[in-house]
């Protein structure tokens, strides 16, 4: 039996929905639930995480031949935390209002399971370009999910999307406020997961 080598395009496309780290593997839930109270914050969070994910994937893939298996985890963590600190400084300097909202979730990108997971499962064993594609694909999947969640929660709880008014005044005077609280996040991710599961079952 011959196994077909997966195509490069699939590295990029699969993690967007079909193998979305949050929806299918249920990892990286912490920032997904906590920072999606508005579309803008969700986009900021996923941009920061994407920066770290893509660069750490590329750098780890570059140095993988020199890293012994027994000390790979400390080296991954040093590389990841370096990029996290860079984005942390950059946000403080250029986007202070976003930094205040994201707060502790920026430093917590260091222990984001998606990033360490891709380093361990993909970048450590693949070439630089493939790792870049994988990082980009996973970033797109993460960003897509966070922005969808942020938009839906903001829509129901505040009546706006990206701060733009999209609902009539009678709705905004008594919105579904619970969507902005933690239960709303659990509720929404449950619905999204069910939708993706149904879509996959129908296809199989």
């Amino acid at each position, binding site marked *: 039996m011959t196994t077909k080598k997966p195509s490069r395009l699939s590295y990029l496309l699969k993690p967007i929905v079909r193998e979305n780290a949050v929806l299918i593997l249920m990892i990286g839930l912490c920032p997904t639930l906590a920072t999606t109270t508005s579309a803008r914050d969700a986009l900021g969070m996923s941009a920061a995480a994407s920066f770290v994910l893509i660069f750490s994937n590329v750098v780890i893939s570059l140095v993988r031949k020199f890293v012994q298996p027994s000390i790979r985890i400390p080296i991954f963590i040093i590389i990841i935390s370096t990029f996290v*600190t860079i984005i942390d400084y950059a946000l403080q300097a250029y986007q202070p209002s976003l930094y205040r909202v994201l707060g502790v979730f920026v430093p917590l990108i260091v222990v984001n399971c998606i990033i360490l997971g891709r380093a361990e499962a993909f970048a450590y064993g693949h070439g630089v370009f493939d790792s870049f594609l994988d990082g980009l694909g996973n970033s797109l999947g993460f960003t897509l999910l966070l922005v969808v969640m942020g938009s839906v929660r903001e829509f129901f709880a505040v009546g706006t999307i990206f701060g733009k008014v999209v609902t009539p005044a009678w709705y905004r005077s008594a919105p579904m406020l619970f969507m902005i609280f933690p239960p709303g996040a659990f509720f929404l991710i449950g619905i999204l997961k069910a939708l993706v599961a149904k879509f996959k079952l129908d296809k199989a």
Partner: protein
Amino acid sequence: MNSKTWMVVSLLITCLAAGFALSEVYAVTKPKIEQQKVDATNSALSQVLVTAQSFKEIEKDSLWYGLDQSGAKTGIVTRSGLRGYGGPVPVLVGLDLTGRIVGLKVASAAEGMKETPGLGLKATEDWFARQFVGLDSATALKKEGGTIDAISGATITSRAVARGVAQAIRKYSEHLKP
């Protein structure tokens, strides 16, 4: 090089490279970050003392003179952080030259206020701060003989704010009282 030595050396190289990269980024962003902090402080200060064009720091992070365009004093702003229920409660108080409170701002949750949401955090709401505006003598809660309505279920937080304001008025008499 045997594998154990290489283990140590490779970790060392990684740390050195990471340290070097971070020191470069730090050097580039540090002046920007400090500028942002100054801007944030100034905008909070001008919210509680609207007559001032600029502020001069007298005591680090706790006392400022407000100055108008010609550089004359228009009042003072103090910051106090007395212990509430969950930690210090940061309060900015602006007083004009006669010692009357003209503005009061309790820091929001994002600015370091750690009181309980729904109880102590209500101290950041407008109606609570407005009670203090216009007063010029020591403030206290009603149950302690003063005039301030405490927040239901959050006496400790309310008291921290009231005592912070009383402290501001004492600072005024030390610094500005004619």
